[in-house]
C-alpha cells in the first residue's frame, strides 16, 4: 500500500531489511534485534509496541543512526543510512533540550547548523513555537518549563529543521494522562499539517491505536516483528467518539492480545 500525493510517491520511506543488532562481545554478547524486516511508507504514522527489553528503543536509535547496525540495512528512500542525518529527527523521552539555550535558541539550533540566515531562522522558529502553543515562552530556559512544555519544545525543535521522518521515543511516557492526551491530539494535528513519516515508540496500546495507521508489535528478546496491525479508524470525530467506538475497542483488543502473548512468555521465563 503506497501513500500517494498526487502521482508522486511521498518522501520519507524507511526500509528495514534483515536487521540485526548485537551488543557486547564474547560472554557479554546479547542480541537485541534479530532478523527484522519492515517498511514504513512515506508520510505514514507507525507505532512500535512491545514488552520492555524488546529492543524497540534500540530500533529507533538504529534508524536515527546513533547506533551501529550489526548486520542488515536501513534505508531512507532507498538510500542506506550512514550515521545520523538531518533527514531524520528524534524526539527523546527525556526531551534532551540544551539547558543553556532558551526555548527560541533550542528551536533555532538545527537551522543554525543548516546555515539558514538569521531572519529566516527567526520566522521559521516562531512558526513552530506557535504550532506547539508556546508563544510567550521563547526566552525561557528549559529549567523554567514543565515536562509537557519541554516536550513541545522538543517537538518544535525537531520539526523546525524539517526532517522527513520523525522518530519519537515514548515522548509522552513521563507525562500524566490529561497532558498526554492533549499532546497526542496536538501530534495528530501536526502530523496532518506537516505530512511527515512518524515512527512512534510506546508501551501504551491505547496510545498506539489512537495515533497510528499501523502498529508494529515486536517479540520480546531478541526483538523482531511479531505482527503488524493496520488501524483503519474513522478519526473525523472527537477523542471521546473515537476511543468509545467499537472499532477502536476491537483494534485495541487485537494489539493487546498479541502483545499479551509476549508478556506471558516473559513471565514464564
Amino acid at each position: 500500500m503506497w501513500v500517494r500525493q498526487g502521482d508522486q510517491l511521498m518522501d520519507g520511506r524507511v526500509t528495514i531489511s534483515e536487521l540485526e543488532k548485537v551488543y557486547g562481545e564474547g560472554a557479554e554478547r546479547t542480541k537485541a534485534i534479530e532478523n527484522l524486516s519492515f517498511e514504513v511508507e512515506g508520510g505514514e504514522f507507525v507505532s512500535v509496541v512491545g514488552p520492555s527489553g524488546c529492543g524497540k528503543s534500540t530500533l529507533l536509535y538504529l534508524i536515527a543512526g546513533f547506533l551501529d547496525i550489526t548486520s542488515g540495512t536501513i534505508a531512507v528512500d532507498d538510500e542506506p543510512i550512514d550515521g545520523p542525518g538531518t533527514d531524520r529527527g528524534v524526539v527523546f523521552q527525556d526531551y534532551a533540550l540544551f539547558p543553556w539555550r532558551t526555548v527560541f535558541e533550542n528551536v533555532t539550533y538545527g537551522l543554525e547548523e543548516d546555515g539558514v540566515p538569521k531572519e529566516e531562522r527567526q520566522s521559521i522558529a516562531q512558526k513552530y513555537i506557535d504550532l506547539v502553543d508556546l508563544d510567550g515562552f521563547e526566552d525561557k530556559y528549559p529549567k523554567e518549563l514543565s515536562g509537557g512544555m519541554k516536550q513541545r519544545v522538543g517537538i518544535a525543535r525537531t520539526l523546525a529543521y524539517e526532517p522527513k521522518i520523525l522518530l519519537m521515543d515514548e515522548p509522552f511516557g513521563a507525562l500524566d494522562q490529561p497532558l498526554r492526551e492533549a499532546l497526542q491530539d496536538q501530534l495528530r494535528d501536526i502530523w496532518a499539517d506537516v505530512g511527515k513519516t512518524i515512527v512512534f515508540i510506546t508501551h501504551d496500546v491505547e496510545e498506539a491505536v489512537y495515533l497510528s495507521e499501523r502498529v508494529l508489535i515486536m517479540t520480546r528478546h531478541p526483538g523482531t516483528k511479531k505482527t503488524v496491525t493496520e488501524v483503519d479508524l474513522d478519526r473525523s470525530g472527537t477523542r471521546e467518539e473515537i476511543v468509545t467506538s467499537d472499532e477502536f475497542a476491537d483494534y485495541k483488543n487485537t494489539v493487546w492480545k498479541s502483545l499479551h502473548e509476549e508478556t506471558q512468555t516473559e513471565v514464564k521465563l
Partner: protein
Amino acid sequence: MRHATSRRIEGLPAPIQGVAQTLVDWIPLGILVLLWELASGTVVAEAVLPPPTTVVGEIVELIVTGDVFSHLFISLFRIGVGLGLSILAGVLLGVGMARSDPVENFFDIFLSMTYPIPKTALVPLAILWLGVGTEAAILIVFLACLLPIVLNSYNAAVDVDQNLVWSAQMMGTSDREMLYKVIFPATVPEIMTGIRQAVPIAFIALVSAELIASNQGIGYLILTSGQIGNYPTMFANIVIISAVAFVAVRGFEETRDRVLVWT
C-alpha cells in the same frame, strides 16, 4: 561556606532583616577581634600580637601612603595570569581527556603523578628554572590551580548526557563542532565549580611563592616586615591579602551566578 538555612533571621521587615542578618553573620568575627584586642598587651605581648586597632591604623597608613598598591597589583597580576592560564589549560586538558582516548592516555600519568605533590614544594624548583620573581610565582599559582579545574571539567565532560550529543548530531553538528557547541557549554557549571575551588588555592600558592621567591608582592611584604620585627605591618598585610581573597571569592560567586542563569 554559608548555607541558606543557617543562622536565618526571620519575621522582621525586609530592610531591617537584611541589616540584622549581616550583623548576625559578622558577630563571630567581631567577638574574635574584641578578644584579640583584649589579649594583646595583657595575655600576649603587644610586640608579638599587635592589637587590631594598631593593625587597622597600619592598614590605613599603607593605603593612604599608597605603599601597598604596587605590591598588591603585582600580586594580583600574578594571580590573574596564573589562574587565567590554569583555566585555559585546565579546561582544554579536562575536556580533551574526557572526549579523546589518546589525549587521556597521554596526560593521565602526569596528572596522577603530580596530583599528590604539594605545589608549594616546587617553589625552589621554580626559582631554579625561572629565577626569583613574577614567572616563578605565576608557575606555582598555575600548577596549584590546574588540578581542580582539570578534574571538575573532566568529570563533567565525561558525564555529558548522550542524548544531548545525539540531538546535536541529528541536527547536523560535526564531531569537531560538538566540543564547543555541546560538550563545553554542558560542562560550564562544573568548570565554574573548579574555578571556585581554585581561587582561594591561587592566593595560598601565591603568598607561599612570594614568601620565598620574590622581591615584590604582598607575600614579600609579609616576610620582610616580619623579618625586621615590624609586626603591625606584617599583620596589616596579612589582613589586606585575606580581605582581597575574600572579595575575589565573593566576586567570582556573583559572576558565576550571573553566567549560570540557566542552571
